[in-house]
């Protein structure tokens, strides 16, 4: 419990440093553009692949496990759409991104810490926490909702393709299911979740990377911790947000 409070306290102290007034906005903008590349564009490929297969598998699983005459076929399309929108494209994707982006952030900052690059920034009178972490958080807040939207589209496309290739149900039934009983709030819900998950992953991973002490071994440990604690927080906040937004 003491360790939890210690880390929680240090995490919020770090956040106050991160959100301090930037020294020079132009320099931060340059960092932001770099993070757009690191966090955003470099993650597109994995998101496309994972979403395509998630959509495809969820469609086939639903089709093969609901072979009942009492259940209409269009439910498979509806199931694919709602699974992608409500959980897979936000929560599942966040867990995957915690692995990719989280470990990347923690190891980058950890390496900067042990090679004294962070000390170099501080010795120049630069708020290193803000300069290094704020652009990562902003880029994550900007890109995670975008990832989610992209994942929903690609996931549904994956489902549609699997139906078209295997013929497990007719395309007409699948398309009907996709359009059936659509609730626009689901999109708002998933976007809210993705913004919060983006913040959690970038800030928690930054915390573990920024506070590394020791050598290369500790950077590896920090990277693992960043992924584990980001994932746990994503799952915890998923439950909280679902209860808050859907009840």
């Amino acid at each position, binding site marked *: 419990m003491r360790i939890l409070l210690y880390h929680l306290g240090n995490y919020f102290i770090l956040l106050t440093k991160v959100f301090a007034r930037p020294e020079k906005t132009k*320099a931060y903008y340059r960092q932001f553009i770099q993070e757009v590349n690191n966090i955003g564009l470099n993650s597109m490929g994995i998101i496309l692949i994972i979403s395509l297969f998630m959509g495809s598998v969820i469609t086939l699983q639903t089709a093969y496990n609901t072979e009942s005459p009492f259940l209409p076929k269009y439910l498979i399309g509806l199931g694919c759409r709602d699974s992608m929108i409500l959980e897979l494209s936000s929560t599942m994707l966040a867990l995957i991104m915690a692995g990719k982006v989280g470990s990347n952030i923690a190891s980058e900052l950890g390496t900067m810490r042990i090679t*004294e690059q962070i000390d170099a920034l501080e*010795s*120049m*009178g630069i708020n290193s926490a803000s300069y290094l972490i704020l652009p990562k958080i902003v880029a994550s807040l900007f890109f995670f909702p975008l990832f989610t939207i992209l994942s929903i589209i690609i996931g549904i496309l994956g489902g549609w393709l699997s139906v078209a290739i295997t013929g497990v149900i007719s395309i007409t039934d699948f398309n009907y299911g996709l359009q059936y009983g659509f609730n626009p709030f689901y999109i708002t819900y998933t976007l809210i979740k993705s913004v919060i998950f983006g913040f959690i992953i970038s800030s928690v991973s930054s915390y573990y990377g920024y506070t590394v002490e020791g050598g290369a071994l500790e950077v590896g440990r920090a990277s693992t911790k960043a992924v584990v604690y980001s994932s746990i927080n994503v799952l915890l906040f998923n439950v909280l947000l679902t209860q808050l937004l859907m009840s």
Partner: protein
Amino acid sequence: MIRVEHLTKIFEDKLVLDDISCTFDKGKTNLIIGQSGSGKTVFLKTIVGLITPTQGDIFYCDTNFTQLNHIQQKEIRKKIGMLFQGAALFDSATVEENVMFPLHMFTDMSDKEKIEHVNFCLERVNVTGANDLFPSEISGGMKKRVGLARAIVLNPEYLFCDEPNSGLDPQTAILIDELIKDITDEFHTTTIVNTHDMNSVMGIGEKVIFIHQGKKAWEGNNKEILNSDNEALNKFVFANQMAQELRKARSIKK
């Protein structure tokens, strides 16, 4: 000038710096020497403000650095240039971008002016034609020189160097020492160099402070150091066999 008064640093229950008081003179290369683990780096980083002291005061001219708030400390730090042990160059930036970084952050120079100034500093430390290389593509000695160029790019009043020639061959180490000395004379900076290299001590030690087990054990210059009676200092200075024999020979001669 930098003045340190009764500086003490305790990490958890380990006393690392024990009541150190000294002054570092302007326009001189001031050396902090001592064995590995004696507290040199903690001392240097405490003076720069990277480590908060447990007790004591640090004065930059007459300003008490330890009494300043974070924003006021920042203003002093803008007058500081620091060369780190591993050079601490930013991996994702080229040599030119590394040296240009402080100019981006603290000046309103045009891009052309920045490049001219960066090239001047790189030439000053004898690095030419490496502007577009990344730190991973240059040698250790070159990294140190680029680090030094970055440290002097804002014409600092205070220059700190943490083990500037560790891991370098003797010839390159002497070159780095000479550069530090020349820059100190040229810019009239208060330079503090952390080292355990006796070649540096003899070459550029205009003022030498010996730290032993966290305490200031001796203070003097490179001319006085060989004749000191301090036992711990003598063990450090005459550490190897050859130096000991030299010392014996000197005492016989006397």
